[in-house]
């Protein structure tokens, strides 16, 4: 396809989108929806200082569920897609120093990840970020000793367990008559404390575990089809 033609298309698309920019006026105040979330009454109903977390886990918890499902799906698809890719794996070994320091670092990184998602309702970060950090620990482990096979079953079991807990907690809200995904199934506690905001920290922790396991699975799958020659 002629590049000039593509350029014309891009320019045309740009001019089509131009009204979005030209009529954009910034915001001088919150949208009505956000104002509702920021009202003191409603803040106290959820009791999570981090409003993004409140939205992600509670108000729009269904999206989060979908999001977790997407990672789960991706991991599952990649798992059966790359199944047959197994050429004989001959990977370079790393230096002992790297291995040893990795062994030291991995638990610390995992702890950091856990910290991030446990405090998701108090400070920036949460399940996704924490999960990603955990996954990075897994990468480190994989890089340090490339020929070790991860305990795949462990991660899958972790993934499934945390997924089930998430769904279970969500359904519990409906069964208790509060509403699907309501965080008030647990006591709301005192604003700004670790054990507060009802089920949010619990749910977010399991989301974190699940995301971490899922990302690790994906990475592990990609790792498993590597070979250095």
């Amino acid at each position, binding site marked *: *396809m002629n*590049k000039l033609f*593509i*350029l014309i*298309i*891009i320019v045309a*698309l*740009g001019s089509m*989108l131009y009204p*979005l*920019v030209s009529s*954009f006026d*910034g*915001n*001088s*105040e*919150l*949208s009505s*929806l*956000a*104002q509702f*979330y*920021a*009202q*003191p009454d409603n*803040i*106290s109903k959820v009791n999570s*200082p*981090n*409003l*993004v977390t*409140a*939205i*992600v886990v509670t108000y*729009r918890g269904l*999206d*989060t569920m*979908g*999001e977790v499902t*997407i*990672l789960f*799906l*991706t991991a599952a*698809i*990649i798992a059966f*897609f*790359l199944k047959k*890719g197994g050429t004989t794996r001959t990977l370079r070994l790393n230096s002992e120093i790297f291995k040893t320091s990795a062994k030291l670092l991995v638990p610390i990184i995992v702890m950091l990840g856990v910290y991030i998602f446990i405090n998701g309702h*108090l*400070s*920036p970060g949460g399940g*996704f970020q924490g999960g990603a950090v955990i996954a990075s620990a897994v990468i480190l482990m994989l890089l340090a000793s490339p020929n070790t096979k991860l305990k795949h079953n462990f991660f899958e079991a972790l993934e499934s367990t945390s997924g089930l807990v998430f769904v279970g907690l969500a359904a519990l809200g409906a069964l208790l008559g509060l509403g699907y995904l309501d965080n008030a199934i647990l006591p709301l506690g005192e*604003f*700004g404390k670790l054990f507060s905001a009802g089920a949010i920290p619990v749910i977010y922790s399991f989301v974190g575990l699940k*995301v971490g396991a899922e990302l690790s699975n*994906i990475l592990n*799958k*990609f790792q498993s*089809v590597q070979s250095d020659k």
Partner: protein
Amino acid sequence: MEYITLITGFLIILAGLWAIMTRKNIIRIIIGFVIFDTGLHIVMVSIAYVRGGTAPILDGSVSIADAAQKIVDPVPQALVLTAIVIGLGVTALMLAYAMKLHQEKKSLNIESFKDLKW
């Protein structure tokens, strides 16, 4: 400021589309998708911005009472969070596809995968 980021976002979106539509290497096309997504996220976050607002986290600096006046819009931010994770899933899957495609024809040129047509 949000104007500039918004325009930057749009330009990055278009740059991503340009890559998707012109580059022949599949990896490069996937990079195009990542760029396209990044642009989208920037646009979304720009829309969330409220002039002079602070992060929507009610720690010491913002009290509950005047939260509504001080913070930026948390909703698009929550959406971007979701979108980023979805983007990762899509990219990972696309890359797995790219690997498989390469295994099949030992080529990464998008034009060598035209077995299905008409």
